[in-house]
């Protein structure tokens, strides 16, 4: 009889343990250096209305789905243009009622890989962001956008006019 109770107790422990395991969802760690939201945002109609696809990290950010604004929006259902988010095509549809977005639907969403849907909700890469600051200019080479000959000549002319003064 004692053996029976012990084996039942072990079974119960295993059962409870297995339930616990099953209900854990995979978690994706967030890097600690995250300071701002990242990733692409895209516009839906009406054009001044934007929706950000990124994960929010600042609690002070306004909610995505309600957009209280003083600008008047006409009631109706608006479909945004298809935007390429590199991971796939994104297209949203917004329903406006009484100057608010009352519903927001993803008409198309990057989910080409079966396993990527859940990951997509969290794991569009968090990239480090910082405000640009002037650095020590004591460098050997400078990389920047292309000077056309026109811009180059313009700049040179400007430099020469300064040299005149």
């Amino acid at each position, binding site marked *: 009889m004692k053996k029976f109770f012990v084996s039942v107790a072990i079974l119960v422990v295993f059962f409870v343990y297995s339930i616990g395991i099953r209900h854990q969802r995979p978690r994706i760690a967030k890097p600690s250096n995250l300071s701002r939201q990242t990733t692409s945002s895209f516009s839906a109609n009406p054009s001044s209305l934007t929706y950000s696809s990124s994960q929010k990290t600042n609690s002070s950010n306004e909610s995505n789905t309600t957009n209280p604004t003083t600008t008047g929006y006409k009631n109706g259902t608006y479909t945004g243009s298809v935007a390429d988010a*590199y991971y796939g095509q994104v297209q949203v549809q917004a329903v406006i009622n009484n100057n608010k977005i009352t519903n927001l639907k993803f008409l198309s969403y990057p989910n080409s890989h079966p396993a990527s849907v859940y990951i997509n909700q969290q794991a569009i890469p968090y990239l480090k*962001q*910082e405000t640009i600051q002037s650095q020590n*200019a004591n460098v050997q080479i400078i990389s920047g956008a292309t000077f056309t000959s026109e811009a*180059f000549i313009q700049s040179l002319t400007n430099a020469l006019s300064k040299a005149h003064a």
Partner: protein
Amino acid sequence: MRKTKIIMGMPITIHIEDCDDTHIFNDVFNYLKDIDQVFSTYKKNSLISKINNGLQQEYWPRQVRQIFSLAKKTKKETNGFFNINHNGNIDPSGIVKGYAIYQASKLIKNAGYKNYFVDGSGDIQAMGGAKQNKYQYWLIGIRNPFEINSIVKNFKLRNKGIATSGSYIRGDHIYNPKTNNVIKEIVSLTVIGPNVYEADRFATAAFAMGRGGINFIENKKSLEGYMIDENKISTLTTGLGKYEVN
């Protein structure tokens, strides 16, 4: 020794440490002039202009076919964001520049030099290092797109290529080829890669992707990127730290 010439409508600088021989400089500049003669869309008698005026495919030289095939490959690799066909005309300058600088760099290498750079208006192949850095690396600054005379980031590079695409010098000039919209939300995108050809073509394509471009670079193993948006916020790929100078 350092020399600068204006070829392909831009200043091209060659700097070779411990070199007094002007021949190699002349050879490289002549090579670049030849490239310009073939690919310039500004020259009426260039091959590209002739092709755009209907020159039959059987008269296209190997060099042109090669550039077209590289452009085609790049278009595929960038989901169509890199495109040399504009309004019915072919303009391969988006790929020719990086290609030419990289080939010029190979000429210098084959002449036996190890510490040098070729800078085509900000798109750079940096080999070896500067004498003042004990030949270990070149110190390269990224121009502030909001203030042309200042620098916002410094990188140490050795045997790498770096290229920056931006909208600030010529005004808005990169379009999303899929929508024909001008890219406005980002102003500068720098890519560091194994060579300037790789860096340049992917910088151009990623810039056309707008904000998503930096994620495209993040997903390319051999590339790192540094993007500056219209709000003066920069975004760095996760592996960029190994080049950064703080």
